[in-house]
C-alpha cells in the first residue's frame, strides 16, 4: 500500500517534469556538485600539468591541454542535449562503427609495421580506443538492457560478453593492455549493474582469474607467449620493484621515488627534480600522478583524489536515481570505469598495481582521454537531468 502511495506521488511529479523536459529547463536539473567537481578537477589538472610539463623540451602543455578541455566541454554540453535513449536506439551503428574504426587503425598500423593507436585528424591525433571506452559502454548497456527481462538466463550475460570481447581483443592486439583492461572493467560493471546472477558473476570472475594466470604464468611456462616479455615484466614488475632497478622496473623505481620525495607539502615545480630532470619518464601522461605528487605532495595528491571521489560518489547517486535500467547501467559502468582508471593509474605510480598505459582522467596530457572523459561526464549529467522523466516512445 505504501508503495502505491509513493508511486502515485511519483507519477504526479513525473507528469510535471515531463512538461519541462524540453529546452533549457533541463539545465536546471543538472547535478551541480558533479559539475562543480568536474570544473575543479579540470582546473586543478590544467594547473598541475602546467607545472609538470614546464621543463620539458616542448615547453608547457597547458595551452594544448586547455584546447582539449575546451573541445571536451563542447562535447559535454552537446551530450546534455542528447537523450540517452538515442544511444540505445543507435546501438548497432555505434557499436559496429567503432569496431570498424578500430579495425581500420589496426590495419593501418600493420601497414606501417608498428603499434598504431591513433588516427591523425589534423589538429590532434585521435585515439579511437580511448573514445571507444564510452561508446563501448553505451552499446553494451543497450545490448544487455534489451535482455533485462531474461537477465537470469546465462545466455544474456554470454551475449553481452560476446559483444564485449570483440573490441577488447582488438585493443589488446594493438597492443594496448591498459585500455583492454579498462574495457574489461567496464564490461564487468555492465554485467554487475544489469543484474546478472551472483553465481554467474562468480563463474566469470573465476574464469577471469584463470585466464590472467594462464596468460602471465601457465602459458609462458609451457612456451606459449601471449604477451611480449616486456609487457609481462611490466605487469608483474610491481610485485618486486627492487629486482632490477635499472632495467625493467626502472620506471617504477623512479616513480615511487618521485611520489615519496614529494612528502607532505611537495617539492614545488622547480624542486621536483625527478620530473624536471626527466628521471621520471612519461611524467606528462602515464606517470602524471607521480609527478603531481612530487610537486604538490600529500596535500596536492589528496586533493585530486578527493575530487575524484566526489565525482564517483555523485555518479553512484545518478545510478540510483536513473530513469531506467539502461541509464543505470550506463551510469554505473561509466562510474566504475572512471574509478578504475584513477585507481590503476595512481596505484601503478605508487607500486601497488601493474604498469599499464592508462591516462589519469583530466590530468594526463592527451586530447582523446580528455574529450572522452568530458563526454562520459556529460552523459552522466544527461542521465541525471532526465531522472524521473519517462522516455518518449
Amino acid at each position, binding site marked *: 500500500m505504501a508503495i502505491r502511495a509513493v508511486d502515485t506521488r511519483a507519477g504526479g511529479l513525473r507528469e510535471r517534469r515531463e512538461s519541462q523536459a524540453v529546452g533549457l529547463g533541463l539545465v536546471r536539473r543538472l547535478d551541480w556538485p558533479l559539475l562543480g567537481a568536474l570544473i575543479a578537477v579540470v582546473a586543478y589538472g590544467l594547473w598541475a600539468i602546467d607545472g609538470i610539463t614546464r621543463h620539458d623540451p616542448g615547453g608547457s602543455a597547458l595551452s594544448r591541454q586547455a584546447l582539449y578541455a575546451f573541445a571536451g566541454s563542447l562535447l559535454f554540453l552537446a551530450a546534455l542535449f542528447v537523450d540517452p535513449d538515442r544511444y540505445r536506439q543507435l546501438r548497432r551503428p555505434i557499436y559496429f562503427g567503432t569496431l570498424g574504426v578500430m579495425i581500420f587503425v589496426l590495419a593501418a598500423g600493420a601497414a606501417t609495421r608498428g603499434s598504431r593507436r591513433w588516427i591523425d585528424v589534423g589538429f590532434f591525433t585521435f585515439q579511437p580506443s580511448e573514445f571507444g571506452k564510452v561508446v563501448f559502454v553505451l552499446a553494451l548497456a543497450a545490448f544487455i538492457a534489451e535482455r533485462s527481462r531474461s537477465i537470469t538466463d546465462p545466455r544474456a550475460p554470454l551475449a553481452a560478453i560476446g559483444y564485449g570481447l570483440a573490441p577488447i581483443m582488438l585493443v589488446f592486439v594493438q597492443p594496448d593492455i591498459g585500455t583492454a583492461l579498462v574495457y574489461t572493467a567496464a564490461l564487468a560493471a555492465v554485467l554487475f549493474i544489469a543484474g546478472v546472477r551472483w553465481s554467474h558473476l562468480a563463474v566469470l570472475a573465476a574464469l577471469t582469474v584463470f585466464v590472467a594466470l594462464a596468460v602471465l604464468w601457465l602459458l609462458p611456462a609451457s612456451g606459449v607467449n601471449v604477451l611480449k616479455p616486456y609487457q609481462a615484466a611490466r605487469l608483474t614488475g610491481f610485485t618486486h620493484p627492487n629486482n632490477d632497478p635499472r632495467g625493467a622496473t626502472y620506471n617504477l623505481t623512479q616513480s615511487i621515488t618521485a611520489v615519496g620525495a614529494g*612528502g607532505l607539502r611537495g617539492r614545488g615545480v622547480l624542486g621536483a627534480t625527478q620530473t624536471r630532470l626527466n628521471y621520471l619518464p612519461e611524467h606528462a601522461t602515464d606517470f602524471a600522478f607521480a609527478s603531481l605528487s612530487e610537486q604538490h605532495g600529500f596535500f596536492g595528491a589528496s586533493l585530486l583524489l578527493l575530487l575524484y571521489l566526489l565525482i564517483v560518489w555523485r555518479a553512484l547517486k545518478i545510478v540510483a536515481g536513473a530513469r531506467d535500467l539502461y541509464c543505470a547501467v550506463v551510469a554505473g559502468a561509466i562510474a566504475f570505469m572512471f574509478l578504475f582508471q584513477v585507481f590503476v593509474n595512481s596505484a601503478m605510480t605508487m607500486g601497488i598495481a601493474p604498469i599499464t598505459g592508462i591516462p589519469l582522467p583530466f590530468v594526463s596530457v592527451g586530447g582523446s582521454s580528455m574529450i572522452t572523459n568530458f563526454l562520459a561526464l556529460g552523459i552522466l549529467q544527461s542521465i541525471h537531468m532526465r531522472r524521473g522523466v519517462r522516455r518518449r516512445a
Partner: protein
Amino acid sequence: MASTADRGGRFLPNDPRTAEPYRLTPQLAFRVAMLGLLFLAIFAVLFLRLWALQVLSGDRYLTAANDNRVRTLRLEAPRGPVLDRNGKVLVRNVAGTRVELWPADLPKTWAARKRELRALSQITGATVKEMLAQLKANGSDPLTPVVVQRGLKRDQVFYLYEHAAQFPGVQTQDSFLRSYPYQSLAAQVLGYVGQISPEEYKSLRPKGYLPTDALGQSGVESTYDTYLRGKDGRAQLTVDSRGRPKGAARTETRPTPGQALKLTIDIDLQRAAERALKFGIATAHAAGETAANGGAIVALDPKDGAVLAMASNPTYQPSIFVGRKVTKKLAPLLNPEVAQKDNHPGFNRAISVTYPPGSVFKPVTALAAMETGLMHPDDVIPCTPSYIAYKQPFLNWTPLIDTGMNLATALAQSCDTYFYELGNRFYKLPANRGHQLQAWANRFGLGELTGLDVGPEVKGLIPTPEWRRNAYKGKQYTEVDRTWKPGYSIQMAIGQGQVLVTPLQMARFYAMIANGGKLVTPHIGSDVELTGTTGQQGRILRRFGAQSPQPTGVDPLALTAVQRGLEEATHSPYGTGFGVFGHFPVDIAGKTGSAEKLIKFPGYPNAVNKTQSWWCGYGPYNAPSIVVCAVIENGGHGGVSAAPAALKVFEQYFGKDGQITTHASD
C-alpha cells in the same frame, strides 16, 4: 514475482507502453551500495599508500631523488713542480683534459653501452676492453667516475662536446699532465706518474687516496708523492636523467695545488753527465770496445751527500707515460723481451744495477790493510807481471812492470800484484781477527744500502766465507764449492771475484776519502716549497736536507796515504789517469777501474768476459767539492772510456779552463 514477468516477456512482444515502469529494485540498490563500498575501499587503499610513501618514508625517497641528480666532481689539484737546485723547472704541469665514464649515466642496455664505448674508443683511443675492465673494477659504485683517458687533444675534446648527446655518461674534466722541459734528462731519477693500481689503492686508502687517483710510480715522484700531489677539490653538478649537466658545477672545496719539490740535482751538470755517458760509450767504441752499451755517472757533494747528478744510460722520455699510452713506446720499459734488447732503459744504473768494481776498490783494500796492521804505506811490495800463490799465478794487468812499490805508486799505477799480496795477507789472518777486508768494506758503505731517498736501490755483495757456505748449500754444490779459498781473498783485493757494488756506493766511498773519513747519506730531495708566482722565491715549507755525515773511524794518516795515491794516479806520468786528468787545470784525484764481468749478450750462446770501465774521484784535491763516479758497461779499461767521461762532468762543474761556474756548496 520476477518469474511471472519473465514468462510474460517470452510470449508477448516487448511493448514499452505496457512495460512495467522502471523502478530502483532493492537488488540494484544493494549492488550500487556494494559499488559504493568498493569505491571507498579503493580510495582508502590509495590514501594509505600515498601516506605511507610521502609522509612515512618521504625522507628516504627524498634522499634517493637527490642521489639521482647530484654528481660530485673531482677538481684535480695540479701536482707540484719539481725544481733543480737552482730553481729550474724539471717537471711541470700542462693543462689537459681527462675523459670520465659515469657508470650511473651510461646506457642501461648492454648493446647500447657497448655501442657507445666503441664510438668513444674511436675518438680517444682507449680500447673498449680496457674501459670495460675499468668499469668492472669500479663495479659496485655507480657514482664514482672511471677515468679512461687523460690528455685529450683539442679536436677530440671539441668532438665530445659537440656530440655530448650521443655520449651519455661520458664527461670531460680539466686535468693536468706532467710535462718535462728537459725531456729525457734525469728520467730514472724523476720517475713518472701513473694511475693508482688496485693493490696500491688497498694500502694507500687509509691516507685518503681514491681509486681514481694518480700516483707517483717511481723516482722522486714516488718518494715525495705526498708533497707533490696536492689535494683535489670537489664540485657538485646537477645532471638530468641522461647524465647531461644542468647549469654550471658548484665548487664546494677548491683544489690545493701540490708543493714544489726542490732537488739537489744541478740540471746543467745532469745534462753534462748524460752527454758524458754517450761520449764515454762513443770513445769506447772508437777504441775498439764495440760492446760498450750503457753506463752510469753519479756526482755527489762529498760534504753532505747531495746528489748533483745521477745519469743512467740508456734512458727514455718520461713523457711516454703521459696521456695516451702507446704500447710500442712503453715496451722498452714494460716488456721484458724488448727491455733486454734495448739494455733496460728503465733501470737507474746508479742505484739499481751492480757491477764488479775492479781497481776502484783498491783504496778499500789499502785502508783495511793499514787499519788491520797488515801494511804500512811506505812498505815496498813487489809489483811483478804475476803473483804466484798456492801454486797458482795471479796476473798483473800489464806484464811490463817489475819493480817494488809503495802504496801511493801502487795505487797510481794500479798494480794488481801489490794488492794480491795484501789480499793473501787478509786470507792468512787468524780466524779470531774476523774478515777485516769485508768488515771495512761494509763500514765504507759497500754492499750496503746507501739510504738514498729515491729508489729502487740494491745492496750489491761483499762476499764472506759465511756467505759462501750459505749461498752454495744446495745439493748441486760440493764441499769444494762451499769452501772459501785463498784465491777469493786475493781476487777481492782488486775488486774482483764476486764483489758487486752500485756506482752510488762507490761514489759515497770516494766522498768519504775526499771529506776525511765521514760517510755521507746521499739524497736527492732538498726541500718542499710553496709555489709562488713565477720569479718569486718559494717559501720553504720543509727541508729534507742532509743527515750529518757519520765518522767511519778510519785513521786520518791512512786516508792521507790513499789520497796521495789517488792524486798521483792522475798526476804522475805513470798514473793510470794522467792522460786524461794530468793537464786539467783543477787538481783532480781519482782511480781507474777495469773490472772483468761475464756478460751474456742476447743471441750468443756463451757468456764472454767483458771489461767494465770505471773511474771514481774528486776535486779539487785540497778542498774537494765534488765526487764523480763513472761506469761504462763493457767500456774497456778505466782510462779508455770512464775517465774521459768523468772529465766531461768536471769540465762542466769547474768550467773547461778551471773557472768554477757552478758550485755545489753555495
